């Protein structure tokens, strides 16, 4: 059994699991563990298979599972190194998220679980299908399948009008995006000779279009980009994202925010690296992707600053973080024709950030869900002091927050550092990238600020829970374990970035349109303890050894303490800032008390406001990322009248007919004399006619 067949088996197990969960969905306590077992079983099959593909550095393939000769499409499971990377991610998150969902979903007593676990497992099956197929038609089929499953998870709370609207916006926008991609796929199919949907044919077709019809190719690339960017949440196409992700149950939100958006990146890599030859097209679209990424970083993160809802805040960061990946990948694509080495490094940086992001973003969504689980609340203004109740969740949230903010030695720092490195150093003659890199660097600070708000608002300060809630303690182990696991990964990838980069290098190498892929050691050095970036190939342009830096930091702190003791500095006693205090004086004008809260909570809010520090941003950035309401449809009444054939054609004809026949029927009066007169008149007419004819 080769790796692809193993993945197929894992995929089949998910489908079976969905069916099994559907059957026993009424047994609320059983269905969750059952789903978890199936997810775990599937991961046990998928993860080793994906690992073996990465280790052997060779793609694996099943035979054709389903062949559609009518349209020259065939479903094969083909696992190349890039697929393997994403498969590993899916295999990691699927069981964790399912495990997390078990206690979480039990709390939602008034919703049937038939609409959760089966769809959840099918969603993962869709994800696996997306990365494993080597045929664009089946890619879109899995893609849309995944979208529809996630849509049903978004509208899971079916009584919630807001969730329904969010789901509508989500499914409409992403379906439109899929339609764009379908057009691109069909045009590519048409171009390929012989017609085929396979990746190989599409690759050849793109090369042919690049030479013969560049304008058409640009159009196709634009369609692809729009399609994937919508899914990834790039602005302004990602307008649906901050509404849709928080609406789903937290287990699903975590998967959407932590993982699903990244599959848009997978699509972009497939198209712009695997399909598109390194050429002038790469230059143009590299810039487009990088600029789109940078704008996402800026707008997404800045908007996050103004959010009070923890899950919504996370969702905006999904947009911002996707921006970092796109910035790096766009830079890499731009560099492909000129500097293969740096291009590889840039794309690796982007993918590394993606892997890291999966870890900490899923973790953070989990923590937000845990807060909701315990306190029944996602509004950061109403949460407070949860640390005393939920220390484990709090620690996980801390690690996740520091990671996403790019604080060393966590994983977010390592990848962000690589991204800054390539954007700041790398592109001579194109100052745009320098600008974008600096922008990313500064926005990272905003990320830190907004996660301080999350941490401070939710975990610090006095507790807002009642006694009963407080006694319940931290969340069940099934919810804690996924967080601890992901937190450990955040630390691992931070301290030993090579563990991830070795795999990522092979994943990138498999799709890079370069004659020779630079070796891993020539790019990031060969030490497991750190990174040694070689942006120009000769000497190290940047070095990062977390252990060394941490050690130096520790030594420095010891020295500082020693100096402090030596100087015998006097101690001052001040109030500790608890991320919230009584707001008065000059700051009071920024106080935003939403009228929906009870007066008691409003008072609480004014004392310990999560956004105490951020009110000014909230006011200033309110419209940075406006949430566009769905337009109200007006009826083109005049236009409709044209088609109202009854009114202007059939109706008049029928009325005319009625009038004519009515007039004729008057001749039938029923009076015998009248009929005699008619006969006489008829006789006269006949005689006259005869006379005329004869004469």
């Amino acid at each position, binding site marked *: 059994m080769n790796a692809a067949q193993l993945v197929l088996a894992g995929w089949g197990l998910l489908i079976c699991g969905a069916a099994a969960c559907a059957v026993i969905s009424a047994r609320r306590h059983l269905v969750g563990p059952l789903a978890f077992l199936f997810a775990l079983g599937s991961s046990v099959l998928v993860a080793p298979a994906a690992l073996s593909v990465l280790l052997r550095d060779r793609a694996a393939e099943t035979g054709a599972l389903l062949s559609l000769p009518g349209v020259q499409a065939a479903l094969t499971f083909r696992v190349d190194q890039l697929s393997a990377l994403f498969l590993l991610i899916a295999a990691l998150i699927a069981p964790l998220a399912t495990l997390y969902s078990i206690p979480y979903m039990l709390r939602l007593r008034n919703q049937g679980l038939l609409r959760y676990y089966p769809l959840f497992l099918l969603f993962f099956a869709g994800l696996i299908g997306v990365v494993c197929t080597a045929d664009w038609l089946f890619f879109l089929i899995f893609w849309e399948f995944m979208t529809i499953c996630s849509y049903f998870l978004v509208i899971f709370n*079916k009584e919630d009008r807001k969730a329904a609207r969010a789901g509508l916006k989500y499914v409409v926008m992403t*379906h439109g995006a899929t339609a764009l991609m379908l*057009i691109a796929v069909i045009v590519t199919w048409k171009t390929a000779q012989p017609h085929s949907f396979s990746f190989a044919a599409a690759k050849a077709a793109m090369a042919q279009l690049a030479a013969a019809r560049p304008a058409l190719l640009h159009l196709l690339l634009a369609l692809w980009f729009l399609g994937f960017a919508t899914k990834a949440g790039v602005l302004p196409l990602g307008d649906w994202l901050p509404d849709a992700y928080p609406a789903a149950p937290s287990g699903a939100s975590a998967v959407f925010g932590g993982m699903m958006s990244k599959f848009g990146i997978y699509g972009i890599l497939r198209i712009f690296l695997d399909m598109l030859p390194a050429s002038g097209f790469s230059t143009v679209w590299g810039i487009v992707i990088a600029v789109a990424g940078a704008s996402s970083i800026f707008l997404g993160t800045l908007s996050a600053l103004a959010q009070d809802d923890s899950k919504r805040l996370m969702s905006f960061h999904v947009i911002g973080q996707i921006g970092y990946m796109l910035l790096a990948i766009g830079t890499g694509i731009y560099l492909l024709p000129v500097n293969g080495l740096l291009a590889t490094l840039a794309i690796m940086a982007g993918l590394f950030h993606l892997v890291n992001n999966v870890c900490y973003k899923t973790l953070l969504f989990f923590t937000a869900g845990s807060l909701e689980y315990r306190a029944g609340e996602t509004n950061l203004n109403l949460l407070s002091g949860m640390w005393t109740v939920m220390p484990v969740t709090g620690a996980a949230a801390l690690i996740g927050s520091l990671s996403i903010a790019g604080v060393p030695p966590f994983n977010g720092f390592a990848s962000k550092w690589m991204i800054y490195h390539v954007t700041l150093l790398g592109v001579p003659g194109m100052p745009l990238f320098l600008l974008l890199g600096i922008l990313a660097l500064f926005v990272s600070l905003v990320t830190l600020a907004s996660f301080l708000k999350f941490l401070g608002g939710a975990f610090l300060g006095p507790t807002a829970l009642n006694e009963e809630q407080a006694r319940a303690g931290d969340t069940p182990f099934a919810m804690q374990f996924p967080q601890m696991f992901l937190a450990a990964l955040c630390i691992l990838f931070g301290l030993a970035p090579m563990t991830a980069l070795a795999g990522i290098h092979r994943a990138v190498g498999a799709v890079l349109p370069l004659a020779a892929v630079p070796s891993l050691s020539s790019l990031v050095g060969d030490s497991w303890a750190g990174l040694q970036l070689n942006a120009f190939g000769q000497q190290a342009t940047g070095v990062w050894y977390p252990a060394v830096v941490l050690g130096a930091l520790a030594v420095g702190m010891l020295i500082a303490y020693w100096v402090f003791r030596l100087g015998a500095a006097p101690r001052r006693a001040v109030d500790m800032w608890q991320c919230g205090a009584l707001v008065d004086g000059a700051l009071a004008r920024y106080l935003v008390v939403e009228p929906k809260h009870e007066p008691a909570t409003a008072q609480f809010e004014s004392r310990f406001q999560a956004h105490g520090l951020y009110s000014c941003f909230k006011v200033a950035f309110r419209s940075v990322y406006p949430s566009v309401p769905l337009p109200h449809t007006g009826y083109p009444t005049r236009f409709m009248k044209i088609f109202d054939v009854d009114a202007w054609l059939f109706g008049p004809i029928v009325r005319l007919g009625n009038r004519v026949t009515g007039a004729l029927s008057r001749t039938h009066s029923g009076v015998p004399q009248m009929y005699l007169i008619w006969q006489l008149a008829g006789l006269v007419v006949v005689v006259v006619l005869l006379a005329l004819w004869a004469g």
Partner: protein
Amino acid sequence: MDPVVMTLLVVPFAGALICGVLSRGAKALAVLTALVVTALATVAVWRAWPLFPDGVNMSFGRLAWMPGYLGSIQLFGALVDPLSSLMLLLVTVVGFVVVLYSTGYLTPGNAEHAYREGDNRYYFWLLFFLGSMVGVALSPNLLQMFFFWEMTTICSWALISHTHTGVAQRAGFKALVITHIGGLGFLIALAFLLVFAQSFDFAAIGKLGGGLKTAAFLLLLGAAWAKSAQVPFHTWLPDAMEAPTPISAYLHAAAMVKAGVFLVARLVQASWEMPSLFGAVLLAGALITILMAVVNYFRQDDLKRLLAYSTIAHLGYVMLGCALGVYGSEKGFQGGVLHLLCHGVAKGTLFLCAGALAYGAGTRRISKLQGMGRRMPLVGAAFMVGVLAVTGIPPLATFWSKLYIFIGALGVRGGGVLLAVLAVESVVAFSWFIYVGHRIFLGEPAEEAETTPLPAAMSVSLVIGMLLCVLAPVLGVPLVRMILP
């Protein structure tokens, strides 16, 4: 002469007659008859399959005693080729589901309209219609098709006015008049064919001279447009929604309205050189119809009327596929024919859902229905599956037919624009139907949404409908691939 096909043609009419006079048990007999017909149709297709794409062509009627060429013209017969198999399976399978559904729907427990009497006449007409549709599907020539065609018109009239309310009678009469005027054109075209081409074959129109050919084609096209509710003859279909909902599902979504596009598909497929001007007329008509229907979606509050407009649009799709066939696009034509099947099952399912909602909640006004997902989860699931299937979400039914049509559209000149228009239509329709689904099924249940539970027959029908939405392309794609324009 194949006994299976002969039995197939006779059984529904026999069943209809017996149902018409039985004092009780009409329901059970109707279900049995429909089941037998479905089984027979399956057997007939299965036996003919090895001979595809030619299939089985039988001739039963020849008036040898007539003088001259009249004696040698084939009048009646049965043709089982891929195209007729597709139609045959559609009308029999959906027919069975609808008959089964009707046994639950036409009961005194129906909250929208308590059906207390009229079972005999209902099942008589329903089975009579089933037989007529089988006749249309099996027609080897235009004459026989015309006979059965007009029979379906009469059934439609009787079934729309089934409840005998004033509105229903008006609607039935309107449908009768409009489709019958179309039928008159059909008859005149037949006369042309008889006199000038001496044949009723589908390809006979090719033997006519220039002007006459155009006239005959336009007359036949007019008949098809009237039957399939295409602009400008579309107005009867939304009004026909006064019919009991199973009738709307069957006659006005899955079967009868398909007769028109079936005729066009037959004409396009027949071996004669169709001038591309005819294709242009077909294409223009289809596009205008789709446009008209889409614009009308947004102001419908009656769920069934909304579905009716959607049906009109999708029949436009089939016409469009046929037009692509005229332009020489094999894929486009196959897609059109496949759409006939896929849309039939998907829209049939949606109508059954609309009926179930009306049965339970007593109304089919979208603005009155709310939060029905909690009251009727099965209907909610079936409706969503139906919506996804009818708007072309992979891997459900119409995705495949639309894919074929899209691919076919790219094969003709200016196809890119056509593709873009169709994609926009698809997305708009999808959005609107999802929106309507939200309005009906999500949110807090309305006060009056206290519902009566569905009879088992209706629930089973809904489940079969959902399955058909998945399975239709599995059967349909191999069939249409054997259809060569």
